[in-house]
C-alpha cells in the first residue's frame, strides 16, 4: 500500500515545528542544538520524500550535503559551547548575553 506524500510532509512539518519550538524556548544550549539537528533532519525527510515521489535522486543527493553541513556545524557549535562553558560555567543561554546593549 502506497502512503501519499502528504503524510511525509506533515510529519516533516511537525518535526520542524517541534525543532523551532525547541530552539526558541529551551534554556539548555545542548538541547537547542538537538532541536536544530531535528530541524535539519526534518528538511532531510522532506527532500527524500520528494525525491522518492518525483522519481529522481537529486533530493537524496542533496541530503548528503545537508548531513555534511549538519555534522560540521554541530562540531563547531559544540566547540563554542565548551568555550563558553569554560568562561561562564553555565549552559543557560539566558545568562549568556554579553553582547547586550
Amino acid at each position, binding site marked *: 500500500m502506497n502512503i501519499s506524500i502528504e503524510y511525509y510532509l506533515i510529519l516533516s512539518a511537525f518535526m520542524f515545528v517541534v525543532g*523551532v519550538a525547541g*530552539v*526558541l*524556548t529551551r534554556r539548555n544550549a545542548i538541547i*537547542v542544538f538537538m532541536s536544530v539537528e531535528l530541524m535539519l533532519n526534518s528538511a532531510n525527510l522532506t527532500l527524500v520524500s520528494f525525491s522518492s515521489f518525483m522519481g529522481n535522486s537529486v533530493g537524496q543527493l542533496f541530503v548528503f550535503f545537508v548531513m555534511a553541513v549538519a555534522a560540521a556545524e554541530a562540531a563547531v557549535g559544540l566547540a563554542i559551547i565548551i568555550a563558553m562553558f569554560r568562561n561562564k560555567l553555565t549552559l543557560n*543561554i*539566558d545568562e*549568556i*548575553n*554579553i*553582547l*547586550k*546593549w
Partner: protein
Amino acid sequence: MIQLIYLTVLLPFAGFLFNGLLGSKIKNEKVIGIIGSSTIGISFLIAIGAFFQTLSLPAEQRQTIVNLFTWLSAGGLHINVAYQVDQLSLTMAMIVTGVGFIIHVYSIGYMHGDKGFWRFFSYLNLFIFAMMNLVLSDNFVLMFLGWEGVGLCSYLLIGFWYDRKFEKGTTSDAAKKAFIVNRIGDFGFLLGLFVIYLTFGSLNFNDVFNKAAALNIPTSTFNFIALFLFIGATGKSAQIPLYIWLPDAMAGPTPVSALIHAATMVTAGVYMVARCSIIYASAPTILSIVAVVGALTALFAATIGLVQNDIKKVLAYSTVSQLGYMFLALGVGAFSAGIFHVMTHAFFKALLFLGAGSIIHAMHDEQDIRNYGGLKKYMPITFLTFLAASLAISGIPPFAGFFSKDEIIWDSFKNGNFILWLIGAVTAMMTAFYIFRLVYLTFYGKERFGHDKHPHESPKVMSIPLVILGILSTIGGFIGIPALFAGEGGNQFENWLKPVFAPAQLKLISFNSYGSSLEVSFMLITLAGAVVAIWFARYLYLKNLSLAHSFSQKFKGLYNLLLNKYFVDEVYDAAIVTPLIVSSEKFLWKIADNKIIDGTVNGTANLINLISKGIRKIQTGVVQFYALVMVLGIVIALFWIILSF
C-alpha cells in the same frame, strides 16, 4: 605755497611718528617738545603762506584743489586724498595750526616731568594731523577720516593719565564715553553720507554742492541729509542730546581741554555744517532745528555752568554753551558769523583753559574754585590774560567776543525770530555772570587755600602763550567789525568768506532789513545786560559771599538740579546704557544664544541620543530572542508571498 598744503597734514604726522617711535628713547624733554611744536609751527607758516597766496587771487577763483592720490575707488565711488584750499578751509587751518602751535609750546611747560611726555606730544601731533585732514579735505570721506581721527586722539588724550581716578570712575571711563558718544553721532554722519552718495552719485564737495545748487532735488532728500549730518555734528560739537561727553573730557590734561575741547575738535561740527551750507539752505526746516538746538543748548549749558565748582567744569559747560551760539548762527543763515565766533572762541576759550591750567599747576592740582581766592597778586600775568578772555567771552567791547557774539545775537533777531534773540541775550548775561563768578572767586577776595599751597606764576614757556592769546582775544575781533562801524569795505571777515556761502545765501529767503539804529540799540541792550551780570557777580562773589550761600539754600531744589547737571547722565544711564547691557547679558547671551539657539543644536544631538537609547533595547544579547525575531520575519515574509498569489 598752496601746492604745499599737504605738508600741513604730513608734518604733524611725521611728528607723531617721530615722537611716538623714538620718544621713549629720547630723555630730553626739550627735544621732544621742540620737534612736536615745530611741526605745527611750520604748518602754521605754510597755512599763512597759502592764505596770502590765495588773497592775491581774484575773489571768484580762490579755490584750489591739491590732489595727492586715489584712495577708494569702487563702482561709482571715487575718493581721492585731495585737499581743497579755499577761504573757509584756510581760515580753519590757520586757527587750528596757530592756536595749536601756541598750545604745544604751553604744553612743554605744563607737562614737564610727566613720564608720558613723549606720548603726549605724539598724540597731540596726531590730533593736528587728523584735524587738518578734516578741515582741508575736498570730500566727505577724507573729512570723515579726520572726524574719526580726532575722536581717536580725544580718546587717547582724555585717558592720557590712564591710572587715575576721575569722579565716579576712571579717566578711561571718560575717554570711552567720549569715543562712544561720538560714534553715535558718527553713525548719523555716515547715514548722511550714504544719502548724499545715493542722491548725487559722488562724495566730493564740489560735485555735490554744485549739483545741489543747480539741480531740482526734492526737499525731503535734503532734509534727510541735513538731519543726519547734524546728528553727527551734535556728537562731535557737543550739542543736545550728545553733549554729555564734553564735561567728562575734562579728565584729560588741561592743554588737551584747551586744544581739543575748546578750540578745534569741537568746532568740527560747526565747520561741517558751514561747509555744507548749500545743503542746509535747501532744507530750511532742518536749518531752523539747528538754530533751535543751538539756542537751547546754549541756554541749558549756561545754566549748569552757573553753579559748578570745578574750574574746568565751568569752562566745559561754557564751551558747550558757546558752541550752541555757533550753531544758532548757522541756523539763522549767518554762516560767516558762526565761523567768526569759532575763531574768537578759539582765542579766548583756549586762553581761559590755559589760564586755568596755569592756576591748577600753581595750586598743585587743586581744581575746586571754592579753595582758591586772591590769586591775582601771585599770578599777575595769568590774571590779566584771564581777565581779558573773560571780558571777551562776556562780549565787552573792544574785546574779540563782542564782535562775534553780537553779530550772532543780532542775526538771530534779524533772520530768526524774537525768541531766539531772547534766548541768546539771556544766555549772554548768564555767560558774563558765570565767568566773572569764576574770576572773582579765583583771583579776588580772601585766600581760601591752605598754607601748604604756594601759588606762583607759571614759567615763561607757559605764560608767553597766555599773553599771545590774550592779545588775540583783545584785538582779534577787529577783522569782523560789522559793516555798521567799518565804513566802506564792510565786515572784512564776512567778505572774505562770502564766495563760499554765496550759493547758500541765494537759496535762503531774503530777510527783513532793519535800520542800523535798531542794530545799535540791540547792541547796547546786550552790552548793558553783560555789565549788569558782571556787576551782580561782583556783588555776590566779592562783596557778599554769604548771600550766594543763602541763595543756594533758598532755591535748594533748583540749585541741586543745576549742580547735578539736570541728572542727564543718570537718565541716559538708566534708560539706555544699563538696560542694553543687562538685556544683552541676561537675555541675548544667556537665554537666546545659550539656551535657545545652542539648545536647539544640542537638543538635536540629545534627540538622536534619546532615539538611540530606545532602539538599542532590541539588542538584548539573548540569542533566542534574535532567533524568534528571525522566525517571525520569515513567517511574515512567507505569508506575504503566499497571499500575493
